[in-house]
């Protein structure tokens, strides 16, 4: 029963801001997330319009869901109320790009795919390769701190986003950081915004540091009989002088589904000259049974990136857990997850950066109770070190009230709450969906 339907007077005010072509009223779903009540979707044309919308929402205590390509709207808890879905899709311009500076500034609604294409045409690289990058926007990638295999070499988006523009809940348009790669002026509000899941502000533009693209890349497929062998090999790789772009781990099931041999697999992607690639081949030795390059290389990496989402789409009853943990805990995490899956009646698969950013995929062999799913995630968390996190990034919507989606964090909760109150005191942004 919906008691909080946005009233038509507010819809009229929103329409006056964005124009009738850019508002949809009474929408019940966004990006696969069923809304608890019909809401208005607005697509503002600029920062000022976003500020005007947020001022109205803040004054009246309306709940706003920031959105971009809507590729991650199912993430987090089910909101109790949504009044306005604020989509940044019309803010898609490139604000500045001089290849000589190795930086680019784009609006938040630009698709990651388009920005990657633009910089690639100048033989440059934005090392941002999250899943669903064809639809995912820059703002969405920042808000969710989304990442892909390139995180191994270049780090998460926090490491190369050098500045942001955003609008706080009360409609203040502000910026943080700058356009240049090195800047320590003022607080680094950029860091706070990245991964805040739209709970602190609506992001409207971002500046990134770029990197020279490698002339040539190759992907070495290293297969192992056991996870123990794989981790042993990874540790030798860590201690070697090699600095690959990506070191992606796949469980046998995941390897099979991306059309590789069904074995514990490490995909090692390297870039550079013929001599450099030859050195990789030599160092990786017999473990690298296959080398993939040319057109099939990006196709393979696409399948790897999309694997967890593909399982979730194929089997809505599956549960995907995204874990972030220190390097040395990966082995134990994988063994524990396998045991939990075996004893609970789930099949288990895994894909992700072998250094500690993994997607664990649990598919129930038969129908499972909510308590069973909750048991899986609780057991998993209890086996991880205290500074690791395990977030349920996909599960059936009706499970969400029965399981703890976010789990614990090593970062002080009261201080995070104080930050939230400072920027969104009325809790209008993504209320009830995030950790806090």
């Amino acid at each position, binding site marked *: 029963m919906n008691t909080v339907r946005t009233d038509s007077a507010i819809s009229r005010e929103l329409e006056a801001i964005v124009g009738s072509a850019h508002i949809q009223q009474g929408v019940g779903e966004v990006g696969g997330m069923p809304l608890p009540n019909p809401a208005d979707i607005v697509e503002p044309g600029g920062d000022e319009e976003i500020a005007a919308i947020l001022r109205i929402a803040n004054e009246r205590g309306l709940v706003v869901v920031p959105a971009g390509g809507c590729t991650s709207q199912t993430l987090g808890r089910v909101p109790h109320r949504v009044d306005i879905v604020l989509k940044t899709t019309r803010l898609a311009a490139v604000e500045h790009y001089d290849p000589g500076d190795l930086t680019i500034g784009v609006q938040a609604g630009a698709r990651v795919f388009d920005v990657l294409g633009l910089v690639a045409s100048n033989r440059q690289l934005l090392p941002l390769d999250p899943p669903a990058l064809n639809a995912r926007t820059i703002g969405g990638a920042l808000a969710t701190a989304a990442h892909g295999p390139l995180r191994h070499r270049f780090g998460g988006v*926090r490491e190369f986003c050098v500045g942001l523009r955003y609008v*706080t809940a009360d409609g203040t348009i502000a910026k943080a950081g700058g356009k*240049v790669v*090195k800047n320590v002026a003022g*607080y680094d509000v950029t*860091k706070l915004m990245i991964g805040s899941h739209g709970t602190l502000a609506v992001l409207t533009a971002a500046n990134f540091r770029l990197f020279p693209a490698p002339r040539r890349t190759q992907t070495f497929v290293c297969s192992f009989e056991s996870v123990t062998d794989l981790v042993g090999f990874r540790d030798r790789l860590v201690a070697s002088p090699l600095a690959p772009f990506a070191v992606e781990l796949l469980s046998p099931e995941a390897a099979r589904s991306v059309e590789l041999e069904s074995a514990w697999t490490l995909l090692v992607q390297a870039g550079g000259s013929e001599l450099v690639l030859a050195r990789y081949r030599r160092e990786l030795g017999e473990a690298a049974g296959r080398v993939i390059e040319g057109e099939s290389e990006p196709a393979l990496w696409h399948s790897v990136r999309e694997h967890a989402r593909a399982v979730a789409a194929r089997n809505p009853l599956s549960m995907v857990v995204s874990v972030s943990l220190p390097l040395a805990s990966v082995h134990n995490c994988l063994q524990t997850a396998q045991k939990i899956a075996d004893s609970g009646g789930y099949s288990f698969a895994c894909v992700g950066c072998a250094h500690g950013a993994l997607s664990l995929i649990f598919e129930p062999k038969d129908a499972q109770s909510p308590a069973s799913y909750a048991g899986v995630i609780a057991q998993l968390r209890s086996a991880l070190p205290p500074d690791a996190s395990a977030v349920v990034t996909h599960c059936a919507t009706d499970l969400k009230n029965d399981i703890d989606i976010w789990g614990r964090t090593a*970062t002080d909760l009261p*201080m995070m709450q104080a930050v939230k109150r400072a920027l969104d005191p009325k809790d209008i942004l993504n209320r009830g969906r995030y950790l806090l």
Partner: protein
Amino acid sequence: MLEFSQMQFQELVKRLTKALGRDAVLWRPEDVMLYEYDAGLSQGTPRAVVLPRSTQDVQAVVRLAAEAGVSIVPRGAGTGLSGGSISRDGGIVMVFSRMNRILEIDLPNQRAVVEPGVVNTDLSAAVEEQGLYFAPDPSSQKAATIGGHVAENSGGPHTLAYGVTVNHVTGLEVVLSDGRVANFGGKAAETLGYDLAGFFNGSEGTLGIVTKITVKLTRVAEAVATLLAIYNSMDDAARTVVEITSEGITPAALEMLDGRTLRAVEEDVHAGYPLDAAAVLLIELEGLKEEVDEQALAVKEVCTRLNARNVRRAANEQERMLLWKGRKNAFGAIGRLSPSYYTQDGVVPRTKIPATLQRIEEISQKYGLRIFNIFHAGDGNMHPAILFDLRDPDQVRRTHEAGAEIIRHCCEVGGTITGEHGVGMEKNELMPYLFSNADMDVMLRLRKAFDPNAMFNPMKLFPVPRSCREGVFSSVQAGHSSCEHGPEVRP
């Protein structure tokens, strides 16, 4: 601002002494005056100096100071260049020289946990045998502490490839303004929740006091090549900076010295720099042996194409260290030429380096001051050093005006006011060049969330209204500055 009587002060010292021990609290004028300076030009005398040994000591001091309404300024080695570790309002300076233990070296996770007083090179030395090191490398790294690095988000020549301090910190333990201990992040590369560890880096001691730091340890590269390219034209050298990356190369470091600096350095350290050149580039490449050799050839080719009259590669480690000695001691060499110098730290987009150098030369002529350029060209981080005589008030005035004009130019071409030295009390009045009132308003809201009474390092980072400045300079008064909360930033 609270008035703070001598009697109240004596009572505070008594309580601090009771909590930390007699040898951990300094208050006599001859003792505290040692803490009036950092490596920049600013000055301010603290009323008391405390030397905590543990997180509990820090908590005790924070609680006592909060109760008494006295400010605290954390201080590492005092090597900062923006007055970050100086007490502006006669409060307590908290010195970390006794919290200098490496608490844990976690090789399997490539992390170390350190106390804030650990010196940069001491940490690298501790993991050297394992082929690891701590990557941030400010010129002061032999003395500078990792706590100071966190406060200032320190960089160095090799940040071009490896990033600044924030890129190497994954976790912090912090004492907050109410004396509570909070953890931000841990050993994992990224932690769920707001990135408070990331946000805290570079907050210049204004949000809380760091008591433990978890840092990444980086593997030492297999091979390194250091090249010196010599130019008859500054413009050609600057254009080379842009061209190198279009070859697909990210050097580990890419430094530029202008002709004036070259001559000063050569006379001082005899690094083998040419005396008659207009500029040199110091280019360092790191990585696999194959990679470094190929890139060195490619770089040499680019330099030659852009009219370098000579490009030479250091033949051995000794030659390499000599080239770097020239760079790292450059400011010392400049110091021999003038009673004082003032180093700016603005950043410009790399393509704007030639125009910026030209502008700096114009400013040099306009104000009648010699300016030396030695900087991190790869990331556009300019370090013009303005030579002046501190005893001549007119020169001091012209120096400040020239510095501000350079910084304004950096901002106008899309850069920033500071790349690695921090804002502190040296550039806080220049913040409006870069940030709007709204930008700073958000920052002040966040400051208030951490430190509601602005007890940590007051009157830094943000512009201070005139009334507060006069209060500070006319008499040393303790007490929190109420000026932090708004009047300087209009809504």
